[in-house]
C-alpha cells in the first residue's frame, strides 16, 4: 500500500465529524482497494501498529539538528500543537524540499525500512530521517511522522472500523470484533479472514474472546432482585484471558498484549492441567499472608520486568483470579447463562485442585461469590471493600450470556465511594492531543505547616465550559512560567476524588493517590477552607 493512499484516507476521515459519514467513507475505501491494502489500513487505524520507532521528543531533536532550529522554539510550538508528529510536519512545510518526492510503500516502510533504524547509530538515524522527510511528499509527512512515533489514532476508533467491516461484510459486529483481537499480521489472507462469511475456527483459535465489561450502576439497588444476581469483589489488577488449547497457552491482557513471558509461573501452572479451556479473570499481586491482593503499584513494578527472575517471582507473587469460563474442551460456551458457566467452572477447578500436587496451585483461584441476602448486605460489603483492597462490587446477572463490550443491564460495577479532599490549584500545564494549547493538566495542593504543598495532579472531571473558563483564568492569574508550566495565584479550590491513598517517599507531600480527578469546582470555598495534609493521613488510617 502506498503512503499517499493511506494519507488521503486519513485526511478524508479527519474532515468528517459524523460517525455515519466516516463509516461510509471507510466502506467505499475497502470496496475499492485490494485485500492486502485494506489489511494494512485496518492495522494502522485500530492501533495495532502502535510500535514506536522514535519518541516524539527525539523526533523534535532530529528536526532541530537537521534544520538548525533551537530546541526551545520547537518545544514552544509543541505546546501549541500537542503532537510531535504534527509539529514537525508543520515545520517541514516551510522547508524548500528537493523535487525528488516520491510515493513510498507503507508495508515496506513498516516491515523493513523502519526496523532497520534500530541498527544504525544516532548520527546516521538523524540523516536517514532527514532523507525521508525530503523524499516523501509534503502532504504525507504527518502520516509518516505519526507512524514513526507510533501515535496513530485518528479520531477513528476501533468502533468505526468494526462498524464499517460489519456493514460491508454483513457479519455481526461481535464476530468482527473477535477476529480483530490479538495478533494481527497484515496480509490479504488476514483481511479475507476478517470479512469472510464462514467461521474459521482454527484462525480464531489463537485469538482471545472480546471481553465483557461492566457498567456503572445507575439504577436504584431496589430495582435489582438480589437472588437473580451474583456478587463478586471488583479487583484492581489487570484483566486477562488465559487460553489453553492442547499444548498452546496464551495469556492475553484486555489491552490485547500477550504476557506469557511476564508470568512464567502462571504458564507453568496452566501447562499441568489436562483440560482445554478459555478463562476470564484478573492478574493481581496476591498477599498470601493476608489473603487479599496487594497494591496496584506493586503489580506495575512486576510488569516492568519483561522476564522476571525467580527472586522477583517470589517477592512480587501474582495470582490469577478466575471470573468466568468461556470455552471448555473446544466448545464456546459464552451463550450459556452465567450460572451454568459458573457450575462448569467450579467443577473444572475443584477437580483439578483435588488432583494437583503442584505446590503453587494457589496462584490460580476462583473469585469468591459474596454472600449477600439483602440490600443492607450489599451496602455493607461495599463499605467493607477497602479493607480487602478492592474497588467495590461487580454485580452479574446469573441469567446472562457472555457478551462483548459494555452491554447494559447484565454486569454492573458498584464502586466504593471515592475519598475526597478539597485542594487548591497551584500549577497548570497545557494538555496534548485535542487539548493542545488549553491549560488542562492541573496540580493541586493541601496545607502543610501553613504552606500549600502539591499533593496530586488531575486532568479530568471538568466539562468543556469549565475547562475554557479555567483556561482563561489561568492565563490571567499566572504568577510565573517555567517551560510549559504556569504557577498560578492560589485562589481556586476544587474537590478532588481518588480511589486510594498511600505513603510515598517520591512525593513532596509524602502521599500518593490513585486515580485523582476533579469532582467539583468549589466556588463556595476560599483557600483557607482547603484540607490539610493531616486530613489526608486520616483517610489512610481508615
Amino acid at each position: 500500500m502506498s503512503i499517499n493512499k493511506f494519507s488521503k484516507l486519513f485526511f478524508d476521515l479527519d474532515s468528517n465529524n459524523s460517525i455515519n459519514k466516516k463509516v461510509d467513507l471507510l466502506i467505499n475505501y475497502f470496496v475499492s482497494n485490494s485485500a492486502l491494502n485494506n489489511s494494512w489500513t485496518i492495522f494502522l487505524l485500530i492501533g495495532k501498529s502502535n510500535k514506536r520507532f522514535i519518541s516524539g521528543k527525539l523526533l523534535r531533536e532530529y528536526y532541530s539538528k537537521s534544520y538548525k532550529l533551537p530546541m526551545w522554539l520547537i518545544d514552544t510550538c509543541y505546546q501549541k500543537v500537542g503532537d510531535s508528529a504534527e509539529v514537525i510536519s508543520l515545520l517541514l512545510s516551510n522547508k524548500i524540499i528537493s523535487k525528488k518526492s516520491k510515493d513510498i510503500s507503507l508495508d515496506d516502510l513498516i516491515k523493513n525500512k523502519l526496523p532497520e533504524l534500530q541498527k544504525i547509530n544516532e548520527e546516521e538515524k538523524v540523516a536517514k530521517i532527514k532523507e525521508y522527510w525530503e523524499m516523501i511528499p509534503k502532504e504525507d509527512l504527518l502520516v509518516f511522522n505519526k507512524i514513526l512515533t507510533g501515535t496513530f489514532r485518528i479520531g477513528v476508533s476501533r468502533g468505526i472500523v468494526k462498524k464499517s467491516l460489519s456493514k460491508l461484510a454483513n457479519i455481526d459486529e461481535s464476530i468482527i470484533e473477535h477476529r480483530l483481537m490479538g495478533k494481527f499480521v497484515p496480509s490479504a489472507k488476514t483481511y479475507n479472514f476478517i470479512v469472510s462469511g464462514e467461521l474459521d475456527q482454527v484462525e480464531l483459535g489463537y485469538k482471545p474472546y472480546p471481553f465483557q465489561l461492566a457498567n456503572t450502576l445507575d439504577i436504584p439497588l431496589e430495582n435489582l432482585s438480589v437472588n437473580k444476581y451474583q456478587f463478586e469483589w471488583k479487583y484492581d489488577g489487570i484483566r486477562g484471558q488465559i487460553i489453553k488449547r492442547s499444548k498452546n497457552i496464551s495469556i492475553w491482557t484486555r489491552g490485547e498484549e500477550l504476557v506469557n513471558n511476564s508470568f512464567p509461573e502462571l504458564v507453568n501452572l496452566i501447562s499441568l492441567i489436562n483440560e482445554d479451556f478459555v478463562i476470564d479473570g484478573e492478574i493481581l499481586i496476591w498477599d498470601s499472608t493476608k489473603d487479599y491482593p496487594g497494591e496496584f503499584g506493586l503489580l506495575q513494578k512486576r510488569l516492568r520486568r519483561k522476564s522476571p527472575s525467580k527472586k522477583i517471582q517470589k517477592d512480587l507473587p501474582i495470582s490469577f483470579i478466575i471470573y468466568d469460563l468461556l470455552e471448555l474442551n473446544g466448545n464456546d460456551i459464552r451463550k450459556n447463562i452465567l450460572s451454568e458457566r459458573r457450575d462448569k467452572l467450579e467443577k473444572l477447578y475443584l477437580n483439578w485442585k483435588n488432583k494437583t500436587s503442584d505446590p503453587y496451585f494457589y496462584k490460580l483461584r476462583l473469585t469468591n461469590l459474596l454472600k449477600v441476602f439483602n440490600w443492607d448486605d450489599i451496602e455493607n460489603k461495599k463499605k467493607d471493600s477497602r479493607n480487602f483492597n478492592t474497588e467495590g462490587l461487580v454485580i452479574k446477572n446469573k441469567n446472562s450470556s457472555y457478551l462483548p463490550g459494555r452491554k447494559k443491564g447484565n454486569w454492573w460495577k458498584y464502586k466504593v465511594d471515592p475519598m475526597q479532599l478539597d485542594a487548591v490549584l497551584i500549577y497548570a500545564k497545557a494538555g496534548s492531543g485535542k487539548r493542545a494549547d488549553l491549560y488542562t493538566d492541573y496540580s493541586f495542593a493541601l496545607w502543610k505547616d501553613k504552606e500549600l504543598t502539591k499533593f496530586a495532579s488531575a486532568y479530568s472531571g471538568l466539562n468543556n465550559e469549565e475547562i475554557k473558563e479555567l483556561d482563561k483564568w489561568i492565563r490571567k492569574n499566572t504568577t510565573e512560567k517555567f517551560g510549559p508550566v504556569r504557577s498560578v495565584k492560589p485562589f481556586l479550590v476544587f474537590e478532588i476524588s481518588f480511589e486510594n491513598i498511600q505513603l510515598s517517599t517520591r512525593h513532596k507531600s509524602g502521599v500518593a493517590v490513585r486515580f485523582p480527578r476533579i469532582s467539583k469546582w468549589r466556588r463556595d470555598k476560599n483557600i483557607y477552607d482547603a484540607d490539610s495534609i493531616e486530613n489526608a493521613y486520616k483517610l489512610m488510617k481508615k
Partner: protein
Amino acid sequence: MEKQNKNLISKENGGIFCSHGDFWIDPARPVKRALITHAHFDHVSFGCEEYICSPETSVLLKERVGKKIKVKSYGYDESFKINGIKISFYPSGHILGSSQIKLLGGNEKWLITGDFKRQVDETCLNYQEVKTDFLICESTFALPIFNWDSTNKIVNQIVEWVNKSPHMTSILFCYSLGKAQRLLNELKNKNIKNIYVHSNIKKINDIYIDQGINLEDVAKINSGIKDFKGSLLLMPPSQNKFNLLKRFGDYQTAFASGWMLIRALKNRSGYDKGFAISDHADWNGLIKTIKNSEAKKIFLDHGDGETLAKYLSIEENIEIESFQTKQ
C-alpha cells in the same frame, strides 16, 4: 519600555498612547481621541469622542459603531498633524481600509503596523513596507509552524470540498468583515454551483462594492431559496449552532482561519474541516517585515510575540520585546 515618559509612545492600561499628541491607537476603552488601524471590533472601542482613520475605515466604522460617531479621515497620501505630531497612514493589506500608522515627533519615528498580511488580496490595497526607528508589530501567528500556503491552493481546496459533496450543503464559516470578501473575490471564477452569504456578510459586501471593490453581488441566504444542496454558504462563526443549521438538512462545515493549521484547534471547535487562510502575516512574513523596517527597537503585540522576541534577540541579536496591549 522602561523610561516611558521619555518616549513618544507608551503602553498604557488599555492600549497604545501618545502623550505628546494626546491620542490613542486602537484603544480598548472609550477615550477622547482614537486613531484606528482597521474596523475589526478587537481594535475599535465604542464611545470614543473622536475617531481618526482612513476613508474606507471611516465608512465601515459608521456602519458598525454608529452613524452619529465623529470621524475624521485621511487618505494614504495625505499626512496630518495632531498637537505637533506628524501622522501618516500606509496600507497594511489586512482588510479594506486597514492602515499602518507612522508617527513623527520629538526626533522619534514610530510605526504601528496594526494587523497586516503580505499576501496579495484584491479586496484591499497591498501591504507596503515602511522604514522606521521604533516598530510596534503585530505578532498573532509568531511561531515557525505558521506558514501559509498560497491563496490559490487553499481556494482550490475549498472548491474541491464543496464539489465533492453535491448532495450536501457546504457551510464555510469566516469573519464577516474582510475574510468573507477576500474569499468571495477569490471564488469568483471558480466552478461552484451557487454561493450565498449571511445577512451580516451581505451588509459588508455592499460597502465593499460601494467603495469600488470588484465583488459580485451574491444573494443572501434568507431570500426564499429552499434548496442549498451543492451550494456554498458563507456565515460568521457565531452562527455555528446546530439549531441554526439544522434547516440545511445534510450539511458539512468548515472554518477559514490561520488557526485551522492546527488539528487540535480544528477538532476542538467542532468543524468538519479547516482551511488555513489568514489575513495576518505568517512567521517568515513577520520576520521579513521586522528586518526590512530597519527599526532599532521593536515591540511585538498579540499572540506569541514573546516567542518571536526571544528567537530574534537570541538568534539575530535584534533588540526586541513582547508588548501585549490586551489581556
